[in-house]
């Protein structure tokens, strides 16, 4: 794993939004992503987990430049993507793709499936002739387990699971190296989720695509990811191999989060000890000065409220917590 080349590197990336604080209060800043450093390697799946509002979707959108970062550098194959222009930017856009959560909103209802999958090829001028594109579309439909005669149908004729397959086929049309999957299965039924997960895993085995898998279903994230990053209030608090993180979480937030996963086993599930998490996630407009988790942390000390712990290597993982530094 360690020998693999780094595909995407985030260096101290921040994404802030400016919101109006109301009359007389002027403008205020929402720190959605605040100083995140991460690496995604070739051919791996990095799972990004955290509660809603922690900034995980914003981080994903920032990597593909759907949101512009306020500070920091995003390196894709060593090149800073925030400085790309013209042809280089077009190539970056071709090599990084995104699958969205809601397959009912991400497909144009007035285009046929064939047109939807062909559109990115046309935009990027791939596969020369119309006939070659048609053949590629058929091939892609088969890759995601749909039939070639679906090509002339419209999105409303498909179920949620089938639509998500269409979204996957569309992203694959450009032969990307990196796909950001933003909650791709949370709108689907349980029996359909496993179908989509298996398709994503098979495609990765065959083509070596890297995924950033954003989700709040912690069981499925563990299943698909090689490594996991845990995000809280715009910060990464712990990163490591997924087995390591799930077996022996170190950061108090990771511990609490993982202990809340419902276990599909009646005896283990009913006797599980959950680490209670008091209070609520603070507003990213007015985050705590010290550790982002200090307001809810059961082990918070004095310095946690004033200083911010940095993500630092601790054995087989990186974690940001003062209590673990001794």
């Amino acid at each position, binding site marked *: 794993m360690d020998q693999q080349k780094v595909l995407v590197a985030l260096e101290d990336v921040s994404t802030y939004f400016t919101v109006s604080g109301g009359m007389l209060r002027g403008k205020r800043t929402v720190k959605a992503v605040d100083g995140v450093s991460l690496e995604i390697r070739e051919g791996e799946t990095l799972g990004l987990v955290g509660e809603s509002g922690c900034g995980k979707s914003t981080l994903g959108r920032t990597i593909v430049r759907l949101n512009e970062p306020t500070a920091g550098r995003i390196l894709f194959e060593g090149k800073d993507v925030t400085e790309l222009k013209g042809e280089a930017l077009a190539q970056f856009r071709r090599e990084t793709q995104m699958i969205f959560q809601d397959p009912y909103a991400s497909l144009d209802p007035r285009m046929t499936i064939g047109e939807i999958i062909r559109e990115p090829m046309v935009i990027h001028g791939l596969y020369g002739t119309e006939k070659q594109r048609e053949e590629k579309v058929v091939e892609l439909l088969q890759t995601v387990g749909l039939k070639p005669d679906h090509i002339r149908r419209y999105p409303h004729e498909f179920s949620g699971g089938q639509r998500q397959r269409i979204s996957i086929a569309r992203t694959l049309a450009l032969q990307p190296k990196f796909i950001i999957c933003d909650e791709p299965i949370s709108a689907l*039924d349980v029996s359909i989720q496993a179908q989509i997960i298996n398709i994503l895993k098979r495609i990765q085995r065959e083509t070596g695509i890297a995924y950033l898998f954003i989700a709040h279903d912690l069981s499925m994230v563990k299943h698909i990811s090689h490594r996991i990053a845990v995000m809280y209030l715009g910060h990464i608090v712990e990163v490591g191999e997924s087995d390591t993180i799930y077996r022996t979480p170190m950061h108090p937030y990771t511990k609490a989060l993982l202990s809340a996963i419902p*276990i599909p086993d009646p005896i283990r*599930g009913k006797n599980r000890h959950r680490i209670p998490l008091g209070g609520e996630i603070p507003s990213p407009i007015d985050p705590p000065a010290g550790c982002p988790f200090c307001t809810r942390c059961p082990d918070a000390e004095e310095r946690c409220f004033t200083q911010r712990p940095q993500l630092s290597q601790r054995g087989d993982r990186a974690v940001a917590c003062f209590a673990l530094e001794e």
Partner: protein
Amino acid sequence: MDKIIDVEKLSVTFPTEQGRVQAVRDVSFHVNEGEILGIVGESGSGKSVSMYSLMGLLPGTAEISCERMEFEGKDINVCHFPDGKEYAAVMEGIRGNRMAMIFQDPMTFLNPTMKIGRQICEPILNHTGLSKEEARNKALELMAMVGIPSPETRIDQYPFEFSGGMRQRIIIAIALANQPRLIIADEPTTALDVTIQAQVLELIKYVKDTMNSSVILITHDLGVVASLCDRINIMYGGKIVETGTDREIFYEPNHPYTKGLLSCICNPEEDDRELTPIPGSPPDLLMPPAGCPFVDRCGEAMKICKLRMPEAETLSPTHRSMCWLNEWKKRQEK
């Protein structure tokens, strides 16, 4: 144990422009006093519709047929009330009082233009003789019970001032207002984060234990079911295909659909294994198959499965499953 809910042969059909959607087909079930019954199924399996019919909340176009529907021994079968007004009067007395519902979406359930206090007081004022003052005190008590900090100030706030988890707590407080005997929770935590989900589920269990009510929990999350429910009904294509205690369903599943569901989820405490998804998608209830609804996705389907619906096979006093394989196994043994 007494049955608090007893339903026999319930069917619900919706006439639509495309044809008749047979959402619930001939299901029988019961809820024991003091237990949590889980109803598991995919979207469109009929789990919500069958529960809405208990509450009398189906739209007027729904065609309901039912042999028996009793709540605390009292007849609430809409088919036995030729006069709609009489049925409405009976249900008025039960809904929000003896039987209450917790809905999935905490944002659409609450009235955004009404203060929280008034919304909690509404069922209290409707069903008890308490004065406004007393109802307000009761509301404060309920808010404290479901874990809303500083209820005295929060009671005069509007729903937008609360987070998703807090709103779900308010909905639970409203459902609990009159100490219902039965709480129907329709996907109460689907919209919530896992940490908040765990808090809400613990709260449901806590109020069930303190009020000795029964709970019907509708969900598609098998983890939630395993950690909360005493008994489980598995629904598929408008039918209850398997019913059993939590251990029977998870450790000795009988129906191929139940087995399929269990093999396409992962347990984060165990080592990774390949997920085995169920191929295909659920049947179209406009034209439900004559035989078993699962036949097109079942790896073990036989000829008869396409032709006729199997009878429920009793595997233990609490465990029943509708699958032809049981009949076939019995014949093999003979």
